[in-house]
């Protein structure tokens, strides 16, 4: 689980979203939607970051600068080595997708859906993707999803690109067999009102350890207290107490 990873790439995609590729043994990564916990020099706690994509020998993280830790992360250069806990949490369960699952990402919730989309395609599924952003300047990975050959719908709240409005404005008119989502809580609440199938939500929470020891990220579910880091971050729609 614990690895010393070499930074292969660390580049900005937008004003606040960066891509970091790490050389890593990805054998511990078993499903899209899992995350890593990165130790940054000068910071006591690790930073949990979802895995966007992985292949043998490397993994890709897309992270948003939200505070001093992630800001410091932007100043880490290639060839630097980072202490990383790899393959944490339970990712998305692909077995429930049906033939035409819908992937809904909001802002920095978009990254894990990329790896999920690739995994679903590899299983012969036909996923559709909705990516929601506030404004045109914040959009990332539209072209990467398009390159996978799947339908990609982009929404912006201010209408500066794609369809004006929220992901649910597109979602309500699509037909799909299941949904997978990651993004902010207000988006989850809107999806909960819009969705017509079962689905899976990936949650975010401030974490202490990231591997289930400290109970720092617990949420109450219909089957009792669950740790977002260890039992999640992905939870089934039917489990969640809103």
């Amino acid at each position, binding site marked *: 689980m614990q690895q010393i990873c070499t930074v292969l790439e660390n580049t900005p995609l937008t004003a606040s979203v960066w891509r970091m590729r790490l050389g890593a043994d990805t054998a511990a990564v078993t499903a899209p939607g899992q995350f890593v916990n990165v130790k940054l020099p000068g910071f*006591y706690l690790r930073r949990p970051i979802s895995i966007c994509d992985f292949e043998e020998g490397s993994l890709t993280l897309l992270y948003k600068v939200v505070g001093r830790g992630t800001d410091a992360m932007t100043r880490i250069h290639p060839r630097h080595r980072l202490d990383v806990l790899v393959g944490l949490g339970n990712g998305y369960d692909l077995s429930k997708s049906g033939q035409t699952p819908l992937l809904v990402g909001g802002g920095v919730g978009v990254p894990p859906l990329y790896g999920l989309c690739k995994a679903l395609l590899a299983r012969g599924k036909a996923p559709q993707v909705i990516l929601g952003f506030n404004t045109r300047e914040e959009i990332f990975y539209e072209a990467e999803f398009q390159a996978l050959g799947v339908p990609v719908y982009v929404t912006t709240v201010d209408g500066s690109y794609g369809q004006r409005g929220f992901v649910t404005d597109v979602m309500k008119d699509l037909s799909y067999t299941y949904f997978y989502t990651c993004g902010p809580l207000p988006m989850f609440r809107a999806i909960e009102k819009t969705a017509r199938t079962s689905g899976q939500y990936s949650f975010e929470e*401030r974490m202490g350890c990231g591997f289930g*020891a400290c109970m720092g990220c617990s*949420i109450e579910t219909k089957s009792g207290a669950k740790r977002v880091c260890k039992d999640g971050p992905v939870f089934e729609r039917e489990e969640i107490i809103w």
Partner: protein
Amino acid sequence: MVNTQVTLCGIALENPVIPASGTFGFGREFAALYDINCLGTFSFKGTTLHPRFGNPTPRIAECAAGMLNAVGLQNPGVEHVKAVELPALAQIFHKPVMANVSGFSVAEYVSVVEQLTDEPQIGWFEVNISCPNVHGGGMSFGTSPAAAEEVTRAVRAVTKKPLIVKLSPNVTDIAAIARACEAGGADGVSLINTLLGMRLNLRTRKPLLANTTGGLSGPALLPLAVRMVYQVYEAVKIPIVGMGGVSSAEDVLELMMAGATAVEVGAANLVDPYASEKIVKALPQVMEQYGIARLADIIGAAHR
């Protein structure tokens, strides 16, 4: 060959390294990573009479050289611990374990200890009278000598197992609390629990933690722990389990020289899941470096 063995309240420990309660669960997450039988023992997740979800999130905030937590004693309750956690623990850990217990009244502490005292896996009780994150219990017993003595005496009456009382640093005179526990019949004291702290979000101008305040742990605490262990060593005759910011074998030696018989490792386990194992492995070499053949010989060395 150096000798890392110590004896804590009559029970021999292969080494003095003890993961602290609340940072090690019931051992399962760590047993998946390394053989936790390399540890002296560990102190399991603070157990209360009834199951508790704990505080709302955010429960965690970072700070320089440490972290704040306001978990609030989330635990499945003593019945579940007996029925599920202890049998599961028996599969992965084959040494006496330290049972950390907490309550919101003297009667609750007594009831939890009564229900666990006949469990053969339990070597020691660690009675937490110092949790800063719950209201109406926890730390309120640990900040008054009279209340500390009362809860110690009541628990003492229902168990013959070694009774270690875990003390709060959020007091003006920790030695007075330690003496009260000794007078109440404690076999040992452990210290320090977390230091009460708070952080604000500059954007919202509100506390980062949903509970407003939380307990500070991590390397920032070590000097405070060394000072308090040193003071308590001069005040009581019962053994001390030292803790607070321990992250290395050197830190273990320092707390032992201040007066600790054994040492708990807390927040370090959360940042590096292998921290306790690494400390156990490093101990013999660091002992050699400082000319220590028998670890038990350095307990309280700073006082001589």
